[in-house]
């Protein structure tokens, strides 16, 4: 059995590489809390490439408007139909920003409409327990930006499995720091990232 490899999806438009520290930080958390064999470094794979199918979980983020090419759209639809899961995080911490508008539209076109994911979903108990649903980020709490806590994540389901998980909570900023700096946190804020990975690996 090969190791779990964290995959960042690269798309033609926008700034797909806006959160370069997130992969290393989540890899560190998976290794820290679980016995899952994890590759020490992540990979970056074009969304329109067949290489994407080697990594059934992919992370996609950015600040700028997103426009998928036809190839990217087709590839993403096939990827989700086969059982892959795309985790999309809006790196802007505002409401109805350009990334949000364009990304949700593109996801709807490629995979299907996003719907609110209930806060009782198995995602919130796949490893750590998050009884109130998705953990709030500091950007939501300190009023910087939209001054609003997004109560739910959005998702496109295939059967009862999440095919696309969409967050407006800006976890990309929340988790974008060097793993060594976790020691300065009283509560590790990447634990929800571990849940997303464990969920993807088991459901």
């Amino acid at each position: 059995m090969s190791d779990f490899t964290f995959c960042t999806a690269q798309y033609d438009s926008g700034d797909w590489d806006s959160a370069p520290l997130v992969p290393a930080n989540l890899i560190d958390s998976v290794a820290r809390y679980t016995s899952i064999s994890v590759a020490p470094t992540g990979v970056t794979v074009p969304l329109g490439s067949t290489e994407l199918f080697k990594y059934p979980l992919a992370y996609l983020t950015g600040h700028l408007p997103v426009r998928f090419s036809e190839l990217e759209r087709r590839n993403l639809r096939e990827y989700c139909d086969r059982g892959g899961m795309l985790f999309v995080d809006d790196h802007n911490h505002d409401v109805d920003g350009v990334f949000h508008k364009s990304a949700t539209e593109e996801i709807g076109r490629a995979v299907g409409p996003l719907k609110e994911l209930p806060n009782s979903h198995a995602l919130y108990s796949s490893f750590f327990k998050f009884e109130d649903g998705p953990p709030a980020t500091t950007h939501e709490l300190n009023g910087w930006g939209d001054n609003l806590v997004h109560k739910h994540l959005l998702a496109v389901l295939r059967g009862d499995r999440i095919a696309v998980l969409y967050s407006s909570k800006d976890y990309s900023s929340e988790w974008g720091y060097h793993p060594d700096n976790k020691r300065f946190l009283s509560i590790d804020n990447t634990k929800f990232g571990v849940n997303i990975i464990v969920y993807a690996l088991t459901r």
Partner: protein
Amino acid sequence: MFESGARAVAFALIAFALWRVLGGANSAGAQRVLGSSLARDLPSIESARTAALHVQIDAPPAPADRDALAAVAHAGTRVTWSGAAMPPLVAVATRERAPGAPVRISVASGTTVSLADGLASLDSVNATGAARGSTVDVGAPSGALSARSGAVVAGVGVPPAAPLHAVLIVGRAGWEGKFVAAALEEQGWTVEERLFIAPGADVLQGAITAIDTSHFSAIVAIDTVLGATGPAIARFVRAGGGLVLLADAANASAVRSIAPAGAGTRRAADSRAFDIANPVNAMAVYPLETLRSDAVRLTTRGSIVTSAARREGAGRVLQAAFDETWRWRMQGGADAVAAHRAWWSRMVSSVAATPMPAAGDNSSAESAPVARLVEALGPASAVEPPSSPARRLPVWLFPVLLVCLLAEWASRRLRGAQ
């Protein structure tokens, strides 16, 4: 003296008539009956002890009538039969132990065979090719299934749909467990999981209580990490459960004693492409080594044994060398998802625990009526035996008896006796 003699002759004639009617005097003849009247004639045939009986039939008789003729033959009567040419026909049905599996009807004949259930005709099968056989899948037949070829009708006993229990997947959390569960669930299996994530932290799906055949039909071990399930697996298999050992799972200490073979060192795939005729060649393998003497080799890749199976107690163990079968689903061709799903369902159904057949099993249906007729009565007779008239009492018997009785009566009247 005369009266006594006449009386004695009369009694002797009556005794002769009774003996003739009831027994042995009739046993020398031959009788011919038509198949259409067989059911009506059988009671008299059975009591008559005919020396020879010939049945003229156009279609195989009903099983009860055929068995009655066989009994008559065993009792000493020479039973033969003849009739119009009846094509040999056999039709049997099987049902895979998988959710929603169709009824597969296998037909062997030399002619075209039509299939019907209790409601309507289903299909016709041309079984005249070199193989003289064919198969038809029927989704959900309603009522009794039958196959007809000319005048020959074979009943097709349909095995009842076996009640299947859940499949338990055990191993490390990873893509393999996820996609095996997805494939089986999409194929209709109920799946429960115990996937190891961290010490003391298993991901559980389903209420995994007792590991026994009343809860699970099969267990799929995807690697050597069996955790708390390990000790119960061997007992589960011996009690009739099925076990699929994937990749190097056979090396787990809890199942090593019941595995068909050991798992060798991992070897990379022969090919990187899954969309080829044999996509399993694109998977890495843990070759099966040191096969047990009672293990059956199922598949090979060159000199490498890639799957084998054996029985353990009342259960079955299938060992497959393949690693990361999920890559087939994700990276394979256009039909990879369906193919991967079907492949996994076949693996599990090949070992799944089989409950006892439920009441209502139509296994007594006559699946090969011509063959059963030949088995019971022998092949058709080329020459029909001459029929002899039914045995009757001699024509002289009654007049002589009457004369004797009248003479005895007249003698007594003439001498004044009352």
